[in-house]
């Protein structure tokens, strides 16, 4: 029996360690993508786009390992929360890595166009903040620190404000004819990518809080929906077999 538990905990440690590695690779890729974008490094863009395939492969393997643990070991309580959270975090990391790839693809589209220094400055700041968010959220996960995880949401507010500042700056630069419309649109999309990366970091931190205490975010939408249909039982209506 002890041997079985030992093997289970080894498996759990192994998936935890792999998710931390995936998180570190992602954190590392954010400043790389920004450098690619700001320096117009097409070769670097290609490299990062291709590296995403490996990231996807590792994510899929990690998920498969989690499913195997669920199927063979039937974890309960904190262990079960841990496995469920890791499966969800894998999805968040995989999606964030896709956003990094999108930044590289945007770099290809704006290649050869000058970017207003003011905009470059804000892009650098957004990149740095997104990187800090992911480093902090992965640290909170590694340490099972729910207080640190709770602070990630506040850190994300700064990234959101940088995003708004950036959009405003794009309008100003465009009105002063400092950038083409095509570049302005691409940069607005790029800013959105950074902002979304921050949101994924917040989602990861919420999963850490779930692991530690079972905390789940209140979902206002579900409450509103229930109130609208007047169903106080808490069950969501489902389509009847006849309809």
């Amino acid at each position, binding site marked *: 029996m002890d041997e079985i538990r030992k093997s289970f905990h080894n498996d759990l440690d192994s998936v935890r*360690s792999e998710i*931390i*590695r995936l*998180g*570190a*690779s992602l*954190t*590392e890729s954010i*400043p*790389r993508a920004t*450098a690619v974008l*700001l320096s117009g490094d097409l070769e670097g863009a290609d490299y990062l786009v291709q590296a995403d395939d490996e990231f996807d492969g590792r994510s899929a393997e990690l998920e498969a390992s989690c499913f195997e643990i669920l199927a063979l070991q039937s974890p309960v309580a904190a262990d079960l929360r841990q496995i469920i959270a890791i499966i969800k975090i894998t999805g968040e990391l995989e999606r964030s890595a896709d956003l990094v790839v999108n930044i590289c693809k945007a770099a290809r589209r704006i290649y050869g166009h000058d970017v*207003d*220094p*003011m*905009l*470059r*400055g*804000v892009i*650098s*700041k957004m990149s740095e903040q997104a*990187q800090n968010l992911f*480093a902090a959220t992965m*640290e909170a996960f*590694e340490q099972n620190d729910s207080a640190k995880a709770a602070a990630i949401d506040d850190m994300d507010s700064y990234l959101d404000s940088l995003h708004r500042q950036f959009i405003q700056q794009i309008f100003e630069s465009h009105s002063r004819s400092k950038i083409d419309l095509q570049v302005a649109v691409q940069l607005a999309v790029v800013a959105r990518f950074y902002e979304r990366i921050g949101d994924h970091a917040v989602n990861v931190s919420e999963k850490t809080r779930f692991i530690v205490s079972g905390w789940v975010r209140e979902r206002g939408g579900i409450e509103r929906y229930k109130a609208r249909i007047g169903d106080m039982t808490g069950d969501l209506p489902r389509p009847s077999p006849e309809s």
Partner: protein
Amino acid sequence: MNLFYFVSGVLIALIASALIKRIVRKSKLVDEKKMPVVVAAERDNQLESLMHALDMLATGVVVAELATGRTLRNKAARSMTGVRFVDVLVEQAADEMIDEVKKGFSGERVLETVSGTTRFFKIQGQATSGQRAIVTIEDITEKSRIDTVQTDFVANLSHELKTPIGAVAALADSLNGETETEVVGRLAERIVTESHRMSRIVDDLLDLSRIEFGGTEEWSEFDLAQVLVEVVSTHQHSAKRQGLGLSLTGSAELWVRGDRSQLNSMFSNLVDNAIKYSESGGVVMVEGTIKDDEIVVSVKDRGIGISERDQKRIFERFYRVDKARSRATGGTGLGLSIVRHIVLEHGGSIDVKSEEGLGSTFMVTLPKFAKTEVKQVPDETGVMA
């Protein structure tokens, strides 16, 4: 240089391998149960000293038993690998190297990490007898930086000198067959311009060399505030021509000991750059104050700014942030390098804070001359010039 790193890496691997062999031989040959207490104590002592020796190495050493996957790490390896930030990536690279050795390969790779500051790690792996893998991890960030600076310097020096020389040769060639007076005049003028550019580069290089190896015999005590007034007055005209404001504020007296002409040329350089890289309507502010017994002079502009990546390299010889723009403004690419050397020569330091699009601030800190009585009060307007 690379050969040196390779040889040192191999040597470290061999030493580690020999140490491990000794540990293993000792542990295998002696049966624990039959071993006399004295021998066991001696073995423990040896093991401890060997581990201590491994811990003294700056290079990280990881010894992995291929069959069981168990690893032994020295102190440096423990500090370089782990589960946080860059450590995770180094650990991952070391594990990958162990896997490679397991498959029968040996070799080396360089891992570059960019989270926070850019760092380089050289990771080497090779198999040893007894089904073990030895992986060494070396932080080669500083070596890589020096290599890059050296390579860039040679490439840039040849480029900077070759450009005007090529231009002079081509212009002289055209001049040779030209008979029209107006064209001859134009070509000759260009030759003069290019020759002056070349001459400026050589002068700057000589200046740099003189500052690097120079003594302090020309030094005297003087009021740096007066030098700042001179520098600002000299640049008022060029600032106005570019539609910029140029102001000087700060303490009335800033006594230093040093080479007055060098410090004058250094601040001229900083103010000149601030003007060059500002857009019309902006302002360049020079401020000289005393903080914590040191003189701090800042030159602040609201120009195009410098990216974080470039900030780390702007004080290198011939490093240019925007190559096209620097040539258009007539720089030699040596200005900030000279500035840095003058500051260092005077026992001070220089720092830059900049954000792209918002401007830059260069802060020079110099030791205050001791016997000075400093009046910290600015004049009525707070402006000295």
